[in-house]
């Protein structure tokens, strides 16, 4: 598979685009008589054009072409039917795929569904574990909140791969936990090589991303609302459900975004903790690009992933129209 490279005309086009961009900036400066604030965003605009827009277009290019560079929709068919390319090959060889027992291959779709399901579980559990933690940390009587935030950050500065491998040392059949169990006379447990271990690894990695935004929102929240509710006779539980929880919703939405998005495409964790027994969508994309060396189908899978994520982002916006990720950090 040869890579798609910039044709000769792209250099003058890029230069022209740059000149036009500078021209527009100068025009704007003259028109508004001075450097108005929107101009400060210009370097970033150029950056986004080069490092976000063009790469996305390149992914789209590969997704809509075949190995020879011709337009095709086959790569998307390959998503829906993971056996599509194989069956085409078989027919070319003069065989009937149905005779070999092949119809529509469901591997890619199944992997996506499995990944979404795992990401959903991970998000729900992170929320269940993280909300109380954030609530406690933001409690005015607790006082240690800011320090605990730091203690949450530090593990994230240790290398992600090393952390995951450390879990492997703990969970193996002859690992630390099982050796401990055996030494006190309990039976050894199968803690690894299954989806449960993968889920645990994901929760471990993404939990802080759920805690931070919720903590920030709760921490900034004006206490007078909940105090007023209490004064008016609401029970603590009712105050929480009717006042605190709704007010903390932007933080919850940010937390869900920051946990759900990356966990759909988790890779490496399934391989190390799951023993490579079930792939997630990230592994699938990696295998398609690297092992199968199929950049076209790989790009189509990536594009589908991106669209899905942008769509769910849009949905979340509906829940939290004011958010713009404000509570995110």
């Amino acid at each position, binding site marked *: 598979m040869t890579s798609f490279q910039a044709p000769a005309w792209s250099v003058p086009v890029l230069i022209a685009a740059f000149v036009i961009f500078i021209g527009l900036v100068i025009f704007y400066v003259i028109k508004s008589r001075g450097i108005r604030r929107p101009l400060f965003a210009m370097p970033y605009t150029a950056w986004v054009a080069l490092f976000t827009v063009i790469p996305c277009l*390149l992914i789209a290019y590969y997704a809509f072409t075949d190995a020879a560079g011709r337009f095709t929709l086959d790569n998307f068919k390959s998503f829906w039917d993971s056996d599509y390319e194989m069956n085409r090959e078989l027919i070319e060889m003069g065989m009937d795929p149905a005779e070999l027992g092949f119809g529509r291959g469901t591997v890619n779709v199944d992997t996506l569904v499995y990944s979404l399901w795992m990401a959903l579980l991970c998000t729900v559990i992170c929320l269940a574990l993280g909300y109380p933690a954030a609530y406690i940390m933001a409690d005015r009587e607790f006082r240690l909140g800011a320090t605990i935030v730091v203690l949450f950050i530090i593990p994230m500065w240790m290398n992600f791969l090393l952390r995951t491998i450390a879990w492997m040392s703990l969970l193996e059949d002859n690992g630390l936990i099982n050796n401990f169990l055996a030494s006190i006379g309990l039976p050894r447990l199968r803690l690894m090589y299954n989806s449960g271990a993968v889920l645990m690894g994901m929760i471990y990695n993404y939990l802080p991303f759920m805690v931070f935004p919720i903590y920030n929102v709760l921490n900034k929240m004006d206490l007078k609302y909940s105090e007023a509710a209490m004064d008016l006779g609401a029970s603590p539980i009712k105050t929480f459900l009717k006042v605190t929880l709704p007010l903390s919703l932007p933080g919850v939405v940010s937390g869900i975004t920051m946990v759900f998005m990356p966990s759909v495409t988790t890779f490496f964790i399934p391989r190390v903790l799951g023993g490579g027994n079930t792939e997630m969508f990230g592994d699938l994309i990696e295998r398609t690009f690297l092992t199968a060396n199929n950049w076209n189908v790989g790009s189509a899978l990536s594009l589908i992933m991106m669209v899905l994520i942008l769509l769910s982002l849009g949905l979340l916006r509906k829940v939290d129209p004011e958010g713009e990720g404000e509570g995110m950090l």
Partner: protein
Amino acid sequence: MKKFLQRFYIILILLFLYVPILVLIVQSFNAGKSRAKWEGLSFVWYEELFKSSAIMDALKVTVTIALLAAVISTVLGTLAAIGIYAMKKRPQALMMTLTNIPMTMPDIVTGISLMLLYLFFRVDRGYWTMLLAHITFDIPYVILSVMPKLKQMNKFSYEAALDLGCTPGQALRKVILPAVKPGVVTGAMLAFTLSLDDFTISYFTTSPLVQNLSTLIYSQARKGIKPTLNALSALMFITLLVLLLIVNRRTADNHPVKS
């Protein structure tokens, strides 16, 4: 009782977060190479660590890239946030969507798309391409941490300063920056953290000649990581813990580190 339950819960969560890190650190003092068997206390891996030029090079690459990416993305991102905030509604919405893309795009897609970009323009991948990639995924986080602070300040103070005779540079330095400083610091910290820990994007945007710690670890991961890397992690852990607690103490009064 409530206080006890609160503490107990937080300690449980922290235990969950720290158990593997403790394992890492204990393994770094193990005389043997095995992950599971304790063969006596030793500092042999620490000695090896300082002798290993590959690890030292990777550490240098990791730290310089994290620092450079944090500085550059903080400058670009802060300016961008100021600019975007002052834009009209339509361009503002467009810019915010474009800013969200790298944040919501899975790392692996970001990495591969940047690799395609470099291949497209026939740029040899290495140190600089990795740096550019890191800046790219850092900027949105800076923008998103500066934005809320901008919303809290007076909308018209920049224009007022200009009308009162400030140059744009002065107005930026004397009026806007002091107001958004906490957001800028947070953004820089976040950018540094993300860059330090990144594996996937680095993997696709560098060549095997220039490795950062993550890609180095990955090339060893499948074989069983040597405890030298654990030794490095242990040292990093202690340094970071001390550094962060100091920073936190200094900023705790007005602003928690990550808000």
